[in-house]
């Protein structure tokens, strides 16, 4: 009996005890002793075996995707098509690494079927059949300096879709019409120098010819025109004076323990054409920005704060109604995991106009408040082992009583095929406020991305 119990116990122990894996003697099951596979030849073979599966180093690195998407307005806008989005996009990306430098090309062949009056290809504003995203050369001439020259995507700052010190070009039309988030960032034609020192890291970006935002101009999204005093769309040409002058952007960055501090400077122009010149054309007035940011772990999440002083140098006194006044812009944000696989974040943002009395005394058209406040709330949920994700983000301005809601649902059918659907909603009490003017552009969209 005792023997039986013993046998049973040892059997059950044996049953759950793992056999030795390969490399710890597991190959030789009849031999109770085991030896480490210390023979260098054997491990060399193993190495070859595993690395042999890697493809031969190709001449260059390539990847691409095909992105098909379509969307429709949910309200009727007499100045626009009902179709809000109809893209066939073929993205190609080629890169080549050298010892201490790198060459990157990426560009999209874009069939934009919503824009029936198809423009000629214009690499600067991204219209037409080809959109060049990147074509740059980066190199490390000495160990503490990186230089990147050419067309590139540039981002810095701490906001989530709110930009104070990031004055690199954005594509607001793509962002509001349901293109991939990637396309919120328009490319810059610039030289970026990064200098790394123990005291501080310096990033300096020079853009020889001003890179405007791909701003709202009526061609896809209708807006309130203060000049005409009404809402306008694609039937109203947007006439603006191009700017060919240069821009400078500077960031000094320092990490102390886990906290990231940064100071910023910008010398250039308002990224959207917010001035009106003597000929009644929109233009980009001069703008200097001085700012700072901090980002740090906070109470189990991440907190950030950012500030910028917008010096509208063509209207220092604030009494020119055709040029924006100086502004102070503030942002605080916090992100935290709410429950497993669900992250929540909130931001509070204020734009405060300086010289408001002067603004009021020379005001023409619709009056803006001295301070515009805006809060954002975002929830992101990952499901089914990160193959299904849902994101909802709300921008709401209590001072303008308007807002913007963004919903998106992504499902990765396989590693290479993604299906998605989403919505961009705009609402507001007035047709003249920032979000309110876009109300008739509210849209839903869906599509697929296939990687290859």
């Amino acid at each position, binding site marked *: 009996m005792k023997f039986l119990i013993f046998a049973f116990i040892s059997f059950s*122990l044996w049953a*759950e*005890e*793992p056999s*030795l*894996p*390969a*490399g*710890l003697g597991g190959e030789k099951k009849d031999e109770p002793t085991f030896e*480490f*596979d*210390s023979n260098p030849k054997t491990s060399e073979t*193993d*190495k070859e075996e*595993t*690395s042999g*599966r890697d493809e031969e180093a190709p001449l260059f690195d390539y*990847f691409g*995707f095909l992105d098909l998407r379509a969307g429709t307005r949910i309200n009727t806008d007499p100045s626009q098509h009902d179709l809000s989005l109809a893209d066939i996009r073929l993205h190609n990306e080629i890169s080549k*690494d050298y*010892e*201490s430098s*790198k060459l990157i090309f990426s560009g999209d062949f874009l069939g934009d079927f919503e824009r029936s009056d198809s423009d000629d290809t214009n690499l600067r504003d991204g219209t037409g059949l080809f959109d060049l*995203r990147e074509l740059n050369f*980066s190199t490390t001439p000495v160990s503490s300096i*990186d230089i990147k020259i050419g067309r*590139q*995507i*540039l*981002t810095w700052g701490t906001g989530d879709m709110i930009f104070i010190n990031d004055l690199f070009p954005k594509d607001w039309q793509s962002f509001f019409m349901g293109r991939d*988030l*990637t396309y919120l*960032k328009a490319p810059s034609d610039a030289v970026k120098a*990064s200098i*790394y020192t123990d005291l501080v*890291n310096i990033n300096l970006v020079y853009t020889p010819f001003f890179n405007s935002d791909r701003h709202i101009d009526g061609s896809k999204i209708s807006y309130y025109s203060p000049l005409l005093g009404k809402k306008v769309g694609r039937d109203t040409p947007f006439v603006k004076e191009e700017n060919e002058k240069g821009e400078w952007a500077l960031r000094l*960055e320092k*990490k102390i323990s*886990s906290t990231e501090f940064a100071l910023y400077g910008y010398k250039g122009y308002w990224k959207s054409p917010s001035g009106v010149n003597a000929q009644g054309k929109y233009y980009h007035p001069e703008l200097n920005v001085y700012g700072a940011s901090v*980002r740090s*772990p906070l109470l*189990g*999440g*991440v907190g*950030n704060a950012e500030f910028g002083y917008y010096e509208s140098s063509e209207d220092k006194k604030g009494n020119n109604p055709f040029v924006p006044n100086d502004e102070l812009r503030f942002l605080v944000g916090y*992100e*935290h*995991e709410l429950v*497993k*696989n669900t*992250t929540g*974040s909130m931001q509070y943002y204020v734009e405060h106009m300086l010289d408001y009395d002067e603004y009021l005394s020379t005001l023409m058209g619709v009056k803006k408040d001295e301070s515009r406040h805006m809060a954002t709330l975002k929830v992101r949920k990952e499901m089914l*082992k*990160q*193959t299904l994700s849902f994101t909802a983000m709300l921008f709401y301005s209590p001072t303008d009583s308007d807002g913007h809601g963004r919903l998106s649902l992504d499902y990765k059918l*396989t*590693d*290479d095929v*993604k299906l998605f659907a989403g919505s961009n909603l705009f609402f507001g009490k007035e047709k003249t406020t920032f979000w309110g003017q876009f109300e008739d552009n509210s849209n839903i969209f869906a599509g697929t991305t296939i*990687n290859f």
Partner: protein
Amino acid sequence: MKFLTMLLLLTLNWNALAISVDEIVQKTNHNSYYRGKDGRAEVKMVIKDSQGRERKRSFTILRLNTGKNKDGKQKFYVYFKRPSDVKKMAFLVWKQINQEDDRWMYFPSLDLVKRIAGADKRTSFVGSDFFYEDVSGRNIDADKHELLETSDNYFVIKNTPKDVVPVEFSYFKMWIHKTSFLPIKSEYYDKAGKLYRTYEVAKVDTIQDKPTVTKAIMKDLNKKTETELSYSKVEYDVGLSEDIFTERYLRNPPVKEMKF
């Protein structure tokens, strides 16, 4: 006489154990996550769902031990190669011991360095059956450790969490190979005492005289999914500089250090 017998028993016992539970756990933790001053490897994951569909991940991982004390802080740099939608993304972790890790993710198409809020460490790593904590290591002070038994090849350790709230298991058992101090198998039991998750090593290679796990399988028995993880081109003491684990190299991947 009784006294002598007891003494004899104690001595025998002492000899039999020879090594304390804490030492076993520490050595195992060291051999699993802290080998050499630094290390690098190519990692492949094959994730299989209950219907046999496969998803694949591949990335390069660089690691540097930075703690002043033995087996403390570390920095990790992960550079994704596959699938295409995450290709060229980079993930930087400054692993802390008694506080949240610092984590950053770089999205090249936006040139965006996003700081990741300290997430639950027991959630899927890159959509696989491995948790973030399985890849970066679980704090050994978070569990109580008991030696259940010693067999010819293994120390069998039961690990019970000191704080049950943040974890989904009630305990896990580890079969630790007696001479390499590598955990060859782990079994996770849920709060009802049911086995729901297993880890098993399929292959060990000796690299620079260090027995190293090069293939392992994690199974989720409830969801009937599994992930095979394989490491290739493993190297220790590469001479990685701490600079690599900064924003500079998130934006510009350290090509030289990753070509091996």
